[in-house]
Every structure is written in C-alpha cells, then in structure tokens.
C-alpha cells in the first residue's frame, strides 16, 4: 500500500527520529512510504490563533502537495485533526488523512506490529486524538501488544497537559498550572517513559519534566512501535 507521510513541521524540525520511526514502522508493515518534499506546515498554529487567511493558504498548499495520494498519515493527532476536521470548516476539502494509530489499526488492520520495547511506559492520550479524532483506545491496543513493554495507567489521563499551541504563551501561567498537575500524574506512575501520539504535547510535558530533571523520557508512540529486538530504540542525540 502506498502512503504519504505528513511529517508535520514540528516533528520534521525538532523530532526527526519520530518521522524516521514512522517510515521504518510502515515499511516493516509492507507500505511504500512517500514524503512529498514540498510539504511545510498544516496551518494549525495560524488557525488556532485567529489567523484565518494564512491558515487557509496553508490548507490549500497542503491539498496541492498531497492531492495524488489515497492515504496520508501524520504522527500527530492535532495536525491530522486540522486536516480532517478543520479544513472542511474553512471550505477546503482534503483527501483521507489518518493519525498513525488509526492508520495502523483501521487501515492496515494490525495491532501487534512486532515491536520490542523493554521499558515501563505510561501513555498520555492527547486531546485532539481523543476528542477531535476519536482514536479511542487504539494507541493503547498497539502498546499492549509490544513485547517487553510494561504499560502503567496514567491517572487523570484525559486531562489536557496545558499546551494548546499559542495558549502556552498567551496564558503561560494557566498553562503551567495544568502542566504541573500533568507532570505530577506522570511522576506518580513511576514510568521511565512517557509516550503520546503528538510531539507537541510531548514537547510541552517533556519540557517541564526536563526542567525538573525528572529523568522521565518523552518518546513518541511511533518510536516505540518501530523499536525491535534487532534494532532497538535508542535515545536520540541531537
């Protein structure tokens, strides 16, 4: 199956290991992955901050870049949500778009991806995956099938981490208060790794944990699913 990757600007720039992991995972599952190099940003930041016209231009750019593909996959619930749920609100129709866990479970029909990840992991479901896309327990089903992985439940998992794009800047104190509670929940699990399907939320919670020198590592779901005994996950170095 041929599938195009929307890496997202954040992952492309800051978290390339996640996008590489998506490529590895999907190829392992028999997909032919394309990465159209003309892609940039889906326009979510502009849209969510109130810059409609800019967001609309970026939406149109997206549709040009991805028009030839039957399936587009993004390792991000919020960017996938932008394309699938918000573009139509702006009068822009895009083709089929899947968040990674949806694509693997629903389109490829796989829950055991043959991964190996011998760590204690807790999972933050991220608001847009959960409520905008409705991915439900698909990420958890994927994680439960990973060999060696010990999944610990995150208390108050469905609460927002306080990122919210420019919200984290415009209402920095409120965002930090939300982050503080989320970090407490993460630390309470005793997990070594915090995973999520969205690098933006992971960057937020991870940024807070890093400030605390908490030692919990933020790792995108894709990197866990890509990890195998032959080629195990290694903490990315810049």
């Amino acid at each position, binding site marked *: 199956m041929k599938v195009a990757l929307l890496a997202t600007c954040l992952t492309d720039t800051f978290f390339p290991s996640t996008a590489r992991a998506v490529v590895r995972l999907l190829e392992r599952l028999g997909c032919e992955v394309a990465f159209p190099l003309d892609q940039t940003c889906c326009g979510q930041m502009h849209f*969510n901050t109130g810059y409609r016209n*800019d967001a609309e231009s970026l939406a149109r750019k997206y549709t040009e870049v991805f028009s030839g593909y039957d399936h587009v996959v993004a390792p991000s619930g919020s960017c996938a949500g932008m394309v699938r749920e918000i573009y139509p609100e702006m009068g822009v129709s895009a083709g089929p778009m899947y968040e990674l866990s949806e694509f693997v479970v629903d389109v490829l029909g796989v829950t055991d991806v043959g991964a190996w990840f011998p760590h204690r992991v807790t999972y933050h479901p991220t608001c847009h995956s959960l409520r905008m896309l409705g991915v439900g327990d698909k990420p958890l089903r994927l994680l439960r099938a990973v060999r060696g992985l010990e999944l610990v439940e995150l208390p108050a998992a469905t609460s927002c981490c306080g990122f919210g794009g420019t919200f984290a800047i415009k209402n920095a104190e409120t965002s930090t208060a939300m982050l503080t509670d989320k970090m407490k929940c993460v630390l309470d699990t005793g997990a070594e790794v915090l995973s999520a399907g969205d690098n933006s939320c992971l960057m937020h919670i991870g940024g807070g944990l890093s400030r605390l020198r908490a030692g919990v590592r933020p790792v995108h779901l894709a990197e866990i699913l890509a990890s195998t005994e032959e080629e195990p996950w290694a903490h990315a170095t810049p």
Partner: protein
Amino acid sequence: MGTRNPVTWLGSPTFPKAAREALADTQLRQNLRKATGTIRGRRAAAVAEMTDWENLRLAGEAIKNDVLSRLDTLLVQLEEAVTARGGVVHWARDAAEANEIVLRLAREAGTDEVVKVKSMATAEIGLNEALEAGGVKAIETDLAELIVQLGDDRPSHILVPAIHRNRSEIRDIFQRRMGISVSDEPAELAEAARRYLRQKFLTTRVAVSGANFAVADTGSIVVLESEGNGRMCLTLPETLITVMGIEKLVPTWQDLEVFLQLLPRSSTAERMNPYTSVWTGVTPGDGPSSFHLILLDNGRTATLADSVGRQALRCIRCSACLNVCPVYERTGGKSYGSVYPGPIGAILTPQLVGDMHDPLSASLPYASSLCGACFEVCPVRIDIPQVLTHLRAEAVEAKGRTAESIAMAAAAWVFASASRYERAQKLGSLARFIARDGRITSLPWPGSKWTSSRDVPAPPAESFRSWWRKNRGS
C-alpha cells in the same frame, strides 16, 4: 446603544492578567479542584445510566436549532399564549430597558423589596444594582447567591455562584452577616439560610425570577431548582416578574421531555432536580395574581446573526462545560470578568458585548487550550472550540497590526514555500549551539513565556527532510 453592556464587570482586567492573580490563590484552587472533581465524577455516572444519551443530545441540539430558525414566530406565539392566560409580556432591547421595566413594576406594586430566584438573565443585566439605585432592595434567595450577596462578592459559576467558597468560608460569612453562631456542617449552613429567609418569603409581595424554558405553544414557563426557594418566590408573592432571554424557548410541551432529562444530569448530576415549577399566565386562587414576562435581547439578536457564533444561543446554562474545563478548574470563574464564566462564557460574553475592541472580550476566546472537553459534555452539542477559534479570528481582525500579526505573517510567508521553510529550519537548527545537555532553558521574549517553566529541546543538526533526501533520494 452607547451604554455598556453590564454582562462584563466594569474595570475587569483581561483574562490572562486576572488568571495570574487567581492562580496565586491556593485556597481558591483547592476549593475549585474539590468541587469540580466531585461533580465530574457524579455527572459521568448520571450520564452513563442513560443508554440514549447521545440521541437526547442530538434531539436537544435539533430542537434548539429549530427555535433559533423561527424565533420571531415562536416569540409572538408565546406572547399570545401568555397574554391569553392573564400574563403581561414586555420586550427589552437591552439591560437598561429590562431594568427599567422591573423597577417600574416593583414601584407600581408599592414595594421597596423584592425576593429573587437565582437567574442568569437578571445577573447579566445587573438588575440588583439597578434596583438598588432606584430604591428597591433585591434579596437573593438561592443559597449560593445569598453567600455571594452577603459576602459582597461576585459569582464564579453559573449553577453554584459561590463555588469558590468552601464550607468554613461560608460559615464565616454567615456568622458575620446574620449575627449567628453556626458550625461549618453543610446541613447546619442550609438550616441557617432557611431561618434567615423564612420571613422574607412569607411577607414579600413581589418576586423576580428567570426561566429555564418557555413553551411557545402553551405559554408555560419552567423553572428548575433544588432548595424550594424558587417555589417560595413563584408561589407566595402577589406579583411575579420573570426576565427571560429570548432564546429560552422550546416550541412545544413535548420538547421539554428532552431537556428535563438533559439538564439535571448535566447540571447537578441528578436524575431529576428536587423541584421543577411550571406555570402558565395566572391561575386564580393559586399563586401570584399578577404575572409579567420580560423578553430580553441584550446582544442575543446580534449573536443570532453570526452563523458560527449563534450556536451559543442553544445553551441551557447547565455549567457542565465549566466543571470539566481544565482552565476554569485552575483560574476560577471570576477571571472571566463576567457572570458567564468558563468555556460557555468565553464564547457567549464577547458575543453579547459585541465589541472585539474591548480588551477583556478579545482576551476571552483565548482562555482555552482547545482541549474539547466542553464540547464532549455539552448537552446541546455546542461546538465551543469551533466558536472559540471563530471569535479569535474576529479578535485578530479587530486588533489590526501587532507584533504578533507581523510574526504570524512572517511565519506564513516562510511556510508558503518549502525552500524558504528549509532555509529557516537550517538557521533555527543553529540554536543547538546555545543548548546544554540537549536542552535550551532560556529564550528571549516571547519565548521566555515558554521557558519560564519548560525547557526547549535542542534542534537536531539534521531535520527529517535532510535525512529523507540523503537516504531516499526524493
């Protein structure tokens, strides 16, 4: 026009500023966390009992959309039905007009004191202050409203205006203002309120209420409550004045079957609230002999004219969105500068004010991380995140050129071309040289807002696209 809409409190700071102060109040945060935590769990249980909840929500949404699509006809129908049953209908374009009518009616009834049932509409128009200025004292009879009134405080929640107060703070207010000695046991506090208000109920000749629903085809008005203060006000006085937003209609009596199931479970997490009163005009020998219904616009018709924003008029004031909101839980209701706090306030207040040049109004749509928990629980399916981003666009337009708009335009220009984007990416990647141990702990403004509490990962030397180009060609 020209007079300010009292839906926002005069002199309130913008949301981020007010929130900053509220966040520093640890007692407030504790109170809110406890109360919202309690009600969230209970609401979820009350809703889980219903196998048809989503169908009820869809029906609630559809009925309210129908109301909005033929509001003129339905209001005229309501007016006819109420008039035919001995009631008098008044129309008020704004707060000042509504307040004048209530004051005139109170004076005509020869009273200088009215008892009040908790009502958002009368809070929105600042009725108590307007009556006071006209020499008429308004006595709040709902327990939480009484706590706010006796504490010279402001409301912070739609359903429980004193949610920011815990039991011992309430005891202190009661002891100070009622001159009594009482413990902080909720049952004893409730008993104190009962004794304090009893004589008022028995002797006051005019009552003012709001309305949860009005049935257009029968002229019936519906008020849901818990304590019995509503029944007291709706039954004992000679004159009853009801102030109701024009959107509070349902077309038929049958439509209530949807809302009487949606509202209590969403609001107090009960299968049914203790008391619901329904009356139609005047019933000789039972209840008030004089009934006045004031139909209030106060920004609603302007809201109705906005094709995205009008869904806020479906709101039935249950406050479920407040209770699940992670922002509300931390900042409390007063940070929103209005009687309508929380997610619904963030979309309703600016629309009722109708002026995005007002700094408070323009800040409210940003008082959300867009997590969507509000939409999930809303019994009439108001897509609050959708309206929030819609209003953000209005706020941006009203502001014109700002540092932010210039930065956003620059970012859009960069993203418009893959080669510009890639050059910016390479330039940005140089930031890794200011990183230590793979993290950046301090950035200049506005990045400092981020690094005040979080590190930034050092950008890697190689972006994904460079890796792709090297390893996969194109």
